[in-house]
């Protein structure tokens, strides 16, 4: 199947300009790699003016099967986390602490009346069982997803904003600004994370979602910052930037119109992969008791009661958040891989 579109591209290629040929070649590479449907290829290649870098990247990504499946699962998790808690209301905090540890997947028959007739259907009040205080595990898991994903996305946004701006300044202006900012980065890297969390906790009188996001963002941006700086160091010396400068473009115009768009690809890959890192970090902090305060669940603090639960031989309160955590982190990493493959300029 891959052979046929190649011929067609080769035929249309001569009609295109040099750039068009290059793009077509790139598309061809991608398609050979992924074995894509031919209709799409013909349409895209026939109109070279529409197939820009980003569009091509999207096409490549959509043909990365593992990444698209992962994206589907992640979207499902996100949508569930957004919608389900709205219907469940306070269910995540309602206790039945005199009857803890209800078993998961325990169905009993329940009679429902529909149009005058009675039916007996299998029913469960707590699909995934209940925890040490008799709270619905399912509601806590889904609500916990909100915290984990919110922290992951907001802290990453923080990374991009702080790291992006500082990295760009350091890389573009160089000199003492670069020196100062890179020494600041060294200081941040050297800070013992948990101790800072303890100190900040003390200062704010407890942990909250805001504190958590600020601390993670404030201490984790350096990777993006260094990446951004490296991109700027390379690109500021490139010919198109020198051309822009020769034409009298302002620093702001050079940075935002010329360098930033060209430096985004590695940042996006790093940011995507970073989100799963932050979600796992939040879980670790929650495990140690430094995530959102109870009764608000997060996947990390759902795991933190492990000791008693293992002693009692109750493993599901650990299994469900653990599975959710691993699945989400894995999906994000696979999506990150897909994006990297799609954006990798060496494949063009």
């Amino acid at each position, binding site marked *: 199947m891959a052979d046929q579109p190649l011929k067609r591209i080769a035929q249309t290629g001569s009609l295109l300009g040099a750039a068009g040929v290059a793009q077509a070649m790139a598309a061809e590479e991608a398609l050979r790699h992924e074995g894509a449907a031919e209709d799409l290829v013909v349409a895209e290649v026939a109109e070279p003016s529409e197939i820009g870098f980003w569009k091509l990247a999207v096409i490549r990504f959509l043909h990365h099967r593992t990444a698209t499946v992962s994206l589907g699962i992640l979207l499902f998790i996100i949508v569930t986390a957004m919608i389900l808690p709205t219907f469940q209301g306070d269910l995540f905090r309602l206790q039945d602490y*005199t009857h803890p540890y209800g078993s998961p997947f325990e169905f009993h028959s329940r009679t429902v009346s529909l149009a005058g007739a009675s039916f007996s259907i299998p029913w469960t009040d707590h699909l995934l069982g209940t925890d040490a205080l008799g709270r619905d595990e399912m509601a806590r898991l889904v609500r916990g997803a909100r915290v984990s994903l919110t922290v992951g996305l907001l802290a990453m946004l923080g990374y991009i904003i702080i790291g992006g701006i500082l990295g760009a300044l350091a890389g573009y202006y160089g000199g003492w600004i670069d020196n100062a900012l890179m020494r600041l980065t060294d200081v941040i890297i050297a800070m013992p994370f948990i101790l800072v969390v303890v100190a900040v906790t*003390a200062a704010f009188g*407890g942990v909250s979602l805001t504190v958590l996001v600020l601390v993670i963002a404030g201490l984790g941006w350096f990777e993006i910052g260094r990446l951004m700086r490296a991109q700027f160091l390379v690109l500021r010396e490139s010919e198109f930037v020198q051309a822009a400068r020769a034409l009298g473009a302002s620093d702001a115009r050079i940075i935002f119109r010329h360098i930033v768009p060209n430096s985004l690809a590695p940042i996006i890959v790093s940011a995507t992969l970073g989100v799963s890192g932050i979600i796992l970090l939040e879980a670790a902090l929650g495990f*140690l*008791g430094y995530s959102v305060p109870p009764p608000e669940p997060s996947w990390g603090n759902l795991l933190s009661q492990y000791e008693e639960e293992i*002693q009692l031989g109750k493993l599901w309160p650990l299994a469900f958040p653990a599975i959710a955590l691993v699945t989400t982190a894995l999906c994000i990493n696979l999506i990150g891989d897909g994006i990297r493959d799609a954006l990798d300029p060496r494949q063009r």
Partner: protein
Amino acid sequence: MHLGIRLRAIALASVGLFIVAACGGGNPTSNVKEGGTLTYSLDADAQTLNPFEVGDVSSARAIQFMFPNLYQADKNLNIVPDLADGMPTVSSDLKTWTVKIRKDAKWSDGSPITSADVVKTAQIQANPNLDTDASFDWSPLTDPVTGVTAKDTNTVVFTLTKTYAPFLAVNLATSIAPAAVYGSVDVTKMRTFEQDHPTVTGGPFLFDKRIAGQEIDLKQNPNYYGGKPHIANIVEKIITNTTAAAQAVINGDVNWDPEINGAAIDTVTAATGINSYVYADLAYYDIRFNDRAKWVDGSKDTLFGDVNVRRAFAYALDKASIVKAATSGHGTPMWGDIVPASAYYDDSAVVKYAQDIAKAKSLMDAAGWTAGSDGIRVKNGKKFSGKFFVRADKPQRVKAVEIMSEQLRTNLGMDLQPTPTDFKVFYKPIQAGNFDLAFAGWGLSLDPDDYTIFSSTQIRPEKTNSGSNWTGFVNADLDTAIAAQQTDLKPTSAATFAARKADFAKVEHILGDNVVVYFMWADNVGQAFNGVAGVQPGNNNSLNYADQGRNTQIFSAWSLTK
């Protein structure tokens, strides 16, 4: 047990001035195995092995084999002589205490233990400049130096300014250190002196070597005055994870786990071949309210300054079921500050609040807190909303706080946000008086004296920087009752006991009636042994005396079975 505060200040089962009870010391009997190494688990490395510096439970456990006590607790927590020769005699005005020292006791360097060692130990403990985390209270002495004197080589005389009932169980039940070693040390530099290596000791076991963070090794003291120990060596192994420690005693990797709690108790008691003893601990938990009208920094009106609000809090909760859920059934609910393990415990003296939500609501209404639109109560436009502090590293406490917070929100419209806080910073806002309520833990010594926790002279930070009364509660009757239980020393132990019990009943009533704090529970804890013979539990299976140095002599009577 890691408790919030370890108070070396509280009195014991019965202050027996003239009772000479049998010592716990061991006489070698036939068929007892000699030699072998006993492995003992410690939940943290000892902070110090200097007897003047021990302020935490792990250090108290690590050091307990090495230094002799002047008086010690027997298995039922009565005070009996250790290094002392008989019980102390007290002058007719009950202010001068005379203690005889036994003549056969020797330090590990061969020199005799004399009255000079006891005098020096007391003087160092009484020195106001001593740099230590341990709390020694020798304020009843007429003078920190001349208040204690050696009459001869075997007689020590303590002169007090007042009759002071906790003196025997608190001040005289203390470990004695060699004057020749510690006497010349500048007390301001005591903290770092022989911190990890005591050179001269006199207990049943002597220091051998230490691998920091891993183990402390001891060897038997063949010249111990309480009898040469059967066991040749003790290895104190540091196992920080409590589940792992319980598992280690089941597997036989260690012979003795001195503290098991929570769900691990069930695991250990169900294991075969393990001797386990579960008993009420000499410790308890309570909810500390800020009873002041305002935070000490003036920034906020307190939520619990009004007694009606505190009573509403008490009526809104079902204590028994909360304690059962939080401790997996291993806690005894409490309504006063005297623990069930103490002989002074008196169930009829406490004020109990059975759950009555309608009454709780009407009390809140009476206090001016009316239900707001979102269910949270409001007064003068301000919501009933605050932080409920609890140590993050204590799952049982966090669980209890979560349950209470939810009950109070749904039953009473109080918005008390559970705030698990790291131990290192937990006490900061509480000791500064800028908090609304907090879950606190208290480790007790052998006397139920509650002066430092509830006397208004001990209010921190307004009155003192070292007291433990964080509530800010002031009540003249309470102060009078607390002073009375301290000074009610009578010529006989039975009379002292009766008088103090009546005093404590008054204290309990005032505390309960005003809900000064909301008492929670006393832990049931366990000790487990694998292959150890000679362990003698007291009443109700209690081994409180075989912990934290309350009795050192028993260790010379223990032996290994394999």
